[in-house]
């Protein structure tokens, strides 16, 4: 199916953005800023937030979380190894880089879970391919054009792109949208450096309700229009939140410090966005790495601790978890230019009030290396993602497994598992199965109190394809089997509407 948005879908999207008024080139400017009501902004939803920090370039894991007592480590790195006496002792003969005093302090308070040896089978040592693998959550030999967070957000916001929710679905600090937030139906992230400047720039943006032509150029045009529409929709909400929220703590004057301070402000300002991405680059330390790496890790550690202190003072630390990742670790042996070449498995850090704290997994095994002299991985990186999705973002077991086309065993990163439920709702709809589907799909829904039920299937244009239920249903559980073998391939939305609740699920027909 073509990914173009046709006229009707586009009109619906634009109607929401412009408050339902007709749009002309001359008239949209004013309406671009019809803000959602202040009241909506004041309600802080008890939603958890994931802040991902990407360490670009391949962080040297062995010089970050250091097996400083292991002679094999010191022998492999005669001039760039970190000596035991200089490093910060954690536990189990593991040490932290001397510049990471901030992270060490948080660790001592039980706010940091460190997972050792995270990687995947058949590791790729190309920056670009490896970054794509980490962002898409695929096996090494499978190329996915969707990010794992994009797939999560697709599940969380089943009406996208027909309807844009009131708050941004994901925020990335920077300028170029990461694969992490891409999906086949469009990108989920709003990307900017500075909330107020972003708002000011969007003020001249125009878009319109003309359907893009069904051509290759039309696909690109649809993409541009979607970006324009999302910018118009969100720039006001974001700058309002940034102006309403505040930082209580001060941050280091680094790029990462700035990014994290904006994120804290936006969360404090009431934004309901579940996922943020910040980044710090420069970890590709092939030559003379000691001083460069020290600065990088200091910036990372200082940024994290000040963010955490700010969240505590703002009373938001219950809801937020930081996760760090990098596309690969580095070679065990140092190279001839006092640096390290591309390697494989490396540690990941999880920071927040809800993490269990401590070091997970065995210390790096420097005896049992692969044929390139690199570490073998201990945990699959998707185990960490699955854990975060389940235990921090509250995604169901089945949905989490669907995102990775596999059920990954969770790791004990968080203190407790949060179970997902349709708590408080008087109706519930289970994920249709199988999905994607070719001929028959099994659908199960629950009615918790007697009420009129309207249950229908729509295509992405918004046309009704089938009305499954349109009558008052008594309390109970209902099963349906739907035959879709003669439906056009593509994405459909199941929408279950009760007296006051509404639940949507996406269905792919192929």
């Amino acid at each position, binding site marked *: 199916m073509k990914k173009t948005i046709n006229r009707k879908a586009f009109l619906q999207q634009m109607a929401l953005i412009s408050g339902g008024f007709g749009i*002309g*080139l*001359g008239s949209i400017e004013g309406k671009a800023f019809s803000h959602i009501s202040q009241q909506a902004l004041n309600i802080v939803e008890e939603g958890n937030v994931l802040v991902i920090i990407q360490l*670009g*370039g391949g962080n040297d894991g062995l010089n970050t979380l250091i097996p400083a007592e292991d002679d094999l480590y010191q022998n492999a790195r005669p001039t760039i190894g970190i000596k035991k006496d200089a490093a910060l002792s954690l536990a189990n003969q593991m040490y932290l880089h001397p510049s990471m005093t901030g992270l060490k302090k948080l660790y001592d308070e039980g706010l940091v879970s460190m997972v050792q040896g995270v990687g995947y089978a058949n590791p790729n*040592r*190309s*920056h*670009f*391919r490896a970054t794509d693998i980490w962002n898409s959550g695929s096996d090494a030999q499978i190329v996915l054009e969707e990010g794992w967070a994009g797939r999560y957000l697709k599940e969380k916001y089943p009406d996208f792109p027909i309807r844009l929710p009131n708050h941004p679905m994901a925020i*990335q600090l*920077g*300028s*170029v*949208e990461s694969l992490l937030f891409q999906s086949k139906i469009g*990108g989920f*992230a*709003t*990307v*900017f*450096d500075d909330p107020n*400047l*972003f708002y*000011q*720039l*969007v003020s*001249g*943006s*125009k*878009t*319109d309700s*003309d359907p893009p*032509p069904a*051509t*290759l*150029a039309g*696909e*690109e*045009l649809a*993409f*541009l*229009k979607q*970006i*324009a529409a*999302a*910018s118009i929709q*969100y*720039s006001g909400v974001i700058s309002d939140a940034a102006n309403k929220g505040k930082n209580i703590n001060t941050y280091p004057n680094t790029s990462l410090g700035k990014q994290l301070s904006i994120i804290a402000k936006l969360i404090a300002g009431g934004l309901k966005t579940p996922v943020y991405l910040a980044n710090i680059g420069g970890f590709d330390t*092939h*030559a003379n790495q000691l001083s460069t790496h020290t600065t990088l890790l200091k910036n990372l550690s200082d940024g994290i601790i000040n963010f955490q202190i700010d969240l505590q003072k703002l009373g938001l630390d219950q809801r937020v978890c930081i996760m760090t990742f990098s596309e690969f670790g580095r070679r065990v042996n140092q*190279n*001839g*230019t006092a*640096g390290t*070449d*591309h390697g494989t498995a490396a540690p990941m850090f999880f920071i927040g009030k809800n993490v269990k704290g401590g070091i997970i997994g065995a210390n790096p095994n420097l005896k049992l290396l692969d*044929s*390139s002299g690199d570490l073998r991985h201990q945990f699959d990186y998707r185990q960490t993602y699955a854990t975060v999705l389940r235990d921090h973002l509250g995604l169901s077991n089945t949905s989490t497994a669907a995102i990775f086309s596999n059920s990954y065993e969770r790791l004990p990163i968080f203190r407790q598992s949060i179970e997902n439920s349709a708590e408080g709702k008087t109706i519930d709809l289970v994920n249709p199965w199988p999905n994607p589907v070719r001929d028959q799909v099994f659908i199960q829904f629950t009615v918790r109190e007697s009420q009129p039920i309207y249950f229908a299937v729509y295509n992405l244009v918004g046309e009704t394809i089938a009305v499954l239920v349109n009558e008052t249903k008594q309390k109970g559980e209902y099963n349906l089997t739907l035959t879709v073998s003669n439906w056009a391939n593509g994405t459909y939305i199941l929408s279950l509407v009760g007296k006051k609740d509404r639940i949507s699920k996406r269905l792919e027909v192929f």
Partner: protein
Amino acid sequence: MPVFSTISVKHLLNRALFGYSKRDFAMATQMGSLQAIVSSLLDDKPLPSAPNLWVNTVPAQIQLDNGSASAWYKEMTNWWNQLMFKEELNIREKMVLFLHNHFSNERDKVNYPQYMYKQNQLIRKYALGNFKQLVKEISIDPSMLIYLDGNNSRGTSPNENYGRELLELFTMGIGNYTENDIKQAAKALSGYQVKGLDVIFDSTRWYKETSLSIFSKTAQFNVNTLIDWIFEQKATAEFICRKLYKEFVYYKPNEPFIQEMATVFRKNNYELKPLLEFLLLSNEFYKEAYIGSKIKNPQELLIGTCKMLEIATPDMNNWYDMAIILQMQLFNPPNVAGWPGQRNWISSTTYSFRGGYTDSLITGKRYNGSNVTGKLSTLPYIRSFINAEKADLLVDDFCDLAISLPISVSKKELLLQTLLSGTIVKNWSTYVQMADTRVNAFIKAVLRIPEFQLI
């Protein structure tokens, strides 16, 4: 054979140049055939003279400490922008940018503009020349040696950085070699050092083995024989042809056509000119489906809009600052893979800044309030259109010039109303009161529609 028409000429100019003016288009049309235009596009031109004398000074720490390196980088960027702006009907600067992106080097690591200047001129020398020779020379070019750590790499414990990227990004593409090939290639590439502005080879720093084994051949490889051998691999010609296709035709390659290109490339011993001639005169290039399917890169937007608006002396600082904001600072691609292009240019923030830039050429004010020198001279410009006094035809003519895709009748009507703003077609004249304000609003509106980002 592709048809010579207004549409095909515009498509060719859009893809081969950084935008064009009415005059450029008329000149191309007068040539009478696509062959004649392509032949002009591929003409050899003498190398431009240096931006300044500093290009020959020996790099020294003081230049970083006192800020001159940074000032020189800016001077060199302005120099290159001017070459693009004044490229006329010639594809060379487009190819230089393509190759700069292909052999991506970052000023943040190379530090000294002298090196990047040298590399830029090397690329320009071969922009329409022999690609294999360019790979050989750029492999031991000071900027590249510094950027990918070939500098001081010793054969006994080589730095793998250049060896990996040579295979992965510059010649063959991922999946066509083994990790061991990289390690062996890194040895063959060792022994070079940057000294001052030059490069020396020290055989005592080379590998000690009597031979290396790369892609199942055992030999005492050096830089030249290694690259010759890389070009014997089937994947190499395909890889570079695919990248050219993605730049000039469409970002999703048509594999059977890539094979045709690769055959032409091999047959011509990796000369770029016959390959480009084949591409720019192919039916594939002019397929209707590809017209308007490319998202302008920031340079195409920055330079091209000024050409189109016939701004005689554009604001160099505006270009310099906006290129950084729009994520295409020359001499500073994001990483060794270069700028990925197409949809990666566009995010909520860069899209909005693009509108801010086109506004600034008309209002003379940047997003931050600072003045833009060399803005549009509204009335002389609009009166240079034959239909300047016929509002409806003027809208057609300007949209034809600015937009590559067909525009709906209703949108044209809205644009016409923006131009008229209160008056009627019959009463329109560029001499009515506030005509300049109306024209400004109209041009701003056209340049703000999403279609303007596509060529």
